[in-house]
């Protein structure tokens, strides 16, 4: 069976203008959304705060939960967790309590006062103090930077610099769009999402590298061809691989997204976006950029040597 017939030649290089416009729109929309929201919508891991997951024996009105918290002097948001009618809710508070016994007991009492002590179960409590949140923010940023540097060094070592430029641009593209989509859909940027982002950084390069490897190989064989044509042929030759490898990964991520449960929902959502965007970028961003870089800064001496 074949998804992409061998000998397929789609003119990707010719279509790059349209692709750049699409990417540009996505990135700008994300950045605008980020600016309007004043940065990513940090979850408690990075911003500090409290999240409590409660399951009631039967569905209740979220407004009632909010009300009962308000009576106890706690301002928080309540959100349905999982499907409707499950009776599971996520309570978020900006406040944290440094006192161990503090907040969750208070919430427990507030809910018990309204709904009765036996009608609900607190399934998860997460409280991150502002100090830890700040630590994690710094460490998270460091992690992304270190990962990028490590990958850059590796790519520059294995390929020539102009390839590294394309690869890094594609990575920045993938990360920006994923963060942007999170901002646009108003999803929380949490520790697992950061982990997903790092995974994307590593994984979205896979496809790019497969294409680059082929370009490098073909450059030896097609010395007389225009560089842009060599790239285009290489992208076409590797197209079925690109789609298949991403496809199998996408299959399992989609399964995880729908069946993995609420706790890792955002994590799998980030992976989903990242893998789709990463595949797209290796064809439509990473490779055309190498061609454009070559046009602007042709390799010195012999016409093409890599």
């Amino acid at each position, binding site marked *: *069976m074949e998804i992409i017939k*061998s000998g397929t030649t789609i003119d990707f290089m010719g279509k790059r203008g349209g692709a750049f416009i699409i990417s540009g729109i996505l990135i700008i929309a994300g950045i605008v959304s980020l600016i309007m929201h004043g940065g990513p919508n940090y979850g408690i891991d990075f911003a500090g705060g409290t999240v409590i997951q409660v399951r009631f024996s039967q569905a209740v009105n979220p407004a009632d939960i909010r009300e009962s918290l308000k009576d106890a002097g706690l301002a928080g948001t309540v959100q349905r967790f999982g499907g409707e009618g499950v009776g599971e809710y996520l309570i978020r508070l900006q406040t*944290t309590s*440094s*006192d*161990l*016994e503090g907040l*969750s*007991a208070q919430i*427990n*009492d507030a809910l018990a006062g309204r709904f009765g002590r036996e009608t609900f179960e607190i*399934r*998860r*409590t*997460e*409280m*991150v*103090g502002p*100090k*830890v949140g700040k630590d*994690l923010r710094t*460490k998270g940023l*460091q*992690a992304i930077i270190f*990962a990028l540097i*490590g*990958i850059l060094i*590796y*790519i520059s070592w*294995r390929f020539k610099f102009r390839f590294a430029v394309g690869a890094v641009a594609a990575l920045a593209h993938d990360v920006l769009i994923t963060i942007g989509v999170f901002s646009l859909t108003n999803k929380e940027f949490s*520790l*697992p999402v950061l*982990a997903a982002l*790092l*995974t994307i950084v*590593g*994984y979205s*390069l*896979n*496809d790019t*590298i*497969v294409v680059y*490897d082929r370009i490098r*190989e073909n450059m030896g064989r097609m010395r007389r061809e225009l560089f842009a044509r060599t790239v285009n042929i290489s992208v076409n030759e590797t197209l*079925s691989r690109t789609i*298949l*490898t991403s*496809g*199998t*990964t996408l*299959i*399992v*991520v989609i*399964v*995880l997204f729908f*069946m*993995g*449960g609420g*706790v890792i929902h955002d*994590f799998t959502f980030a992976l989903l976006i990242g893998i789709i965007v990463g595949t797209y970028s290796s064809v439509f961003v990473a490779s055309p950029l190498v061609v454009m870089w070559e046009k602007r800064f042709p390799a010195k001496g012999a016409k093409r040597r890599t």
Partner: protein
Amino acid sequence: MAGMKSTFRWRLLLILFVLIGALIYCFPTLVRETPSWWPQFLPQDKIHLGLDLQGGMHLILEVETVKAVESAVERIKNDLKADLKKERIFSTYLDRVQGDKIEVVLLNPEVKEKFDVYRKEEYPRLKEIGATQEGDRVKVLLELELRYRDDLEQSAVDQALETIRNRIDQFGVSEPEIARQGKDRILIQLPGIDDPQRAKELLGKTALLEFKLVDEDYSLQKALAGDIPFGDVILYQKVEDPKTGAVRRIPYLIQDKTLMTGDALKDARVSFDQNNMPYIALSLNPAGARNFDRITGENVGRKLAIILDDNVYSAPVIRQRISGGEAVIEGRFTLDEAKDLAIILRAGSLPAPVQTLEERTVGPSLGQDSINKGIKSIIIGGILVVLFMIVYYQLAGVVADLALIMNLIIIIGVLAAFRGTLTLPGIAGLVLTVGMAVDANVLIFERIREEVRLGKPPRAALETGYSKAFLTIMDANVTTFIAALVLLQFGTGPIKGFAVTLSIGIAASMFTAIVVTRFVFDLVLSKMRVKRLSI
């Protein structure tokens, strides 16, 4: 070709070694209970589950070392005050200021000289950080030597760690993890806790036990209105109505002079009175017993408040001198409350209050939910990928699927062998590897198809396919591996679990894709006359 034959046996041995090793380590995890025929020398342990899967509590506490320093300075100040009086070194003012400093105002410069000599002799830990003359008087500001202060802070954290470990040991948690983190933080992991609230109350209490007298000479009403006599404080007793759960606070006017502290305790046990209500029986150590004998003797008829962390627990009237070194704390305790209080009193007080910096608690039911969903995702994702590979690559797909299954076995085996922790993101990592594990084989198979299209015979196509795809596979996996390693360095518990399964998965998938599938193909080609590759 001859070379290939000779490596054939070695490759087979390597694959069998890895597969059997992994299976042996997997086995205890896959069965409910290791059967009796399972030999003792083989691994017995199931994979260790993270707190997010088995339920439990993760805490990071910070010891407020500043408070420990302050109370040390307070003690030194009290000693200094008494000593200066004794030595007739006259001061008009002596108190603790700015939290951790002592200010002394000495009568005149001559006294100051005398004071300096005395301080260097008897209080070498105090350092003068400023002296100003105002008229005749000399104002001196003192603080602790930096080294001594550091020692104090360090020992406060050490002692807090010890106390918390004691409390957890006595509370009875299986496999707790208690570790110091950084300078003044303590990491606590309590797996399988079913009453997190109770555990938190147990850990968070400073548990400073104090005995103080109730001031009955002065009107409580006036004091509550804001007119508190010098040297008194108002403290409260919390009384919970057992039926409604409503909490009442009863005020007491207390003389703020500590007569005795928890240091005097030898033991604390739960006992029951004639109504079968629990109370705490305290045994005092010899010094404590002598002290208690004197205190009760001097204050017969007055009320003695028993105070824990500024909460009054009870304030019984002293009816007679108590000489035996036994005391009781009554309160309207539930049995659990009484038990926990006894634990806290036995384990001793924290040298300084602790603050919660981070708390993550997962209930056991949610953990089980996550496990079920994770397993379901692996199975469904796995089946879809397996089917896809067979449909797309036919027999070669079957070979890739075998490699995929072996891949999962290796990951679980390695996790079990190296006592890695499986977390929920770790399961996600496992599912992700299922998708990624076939990537390498896809690369190889597509390459082989190309070679076949060029008209190469099966063996040559296979040969070229593998050798040409090899570097690409390396390059593509190394970048993901770099990202996983960074995550491993940086991540907290659950994320670390993800990074671990991901990195093991990458390594395992390269092994299975390059070594195992190649071996199967070589085996088939050497045994049968294959005209056309089923790929």
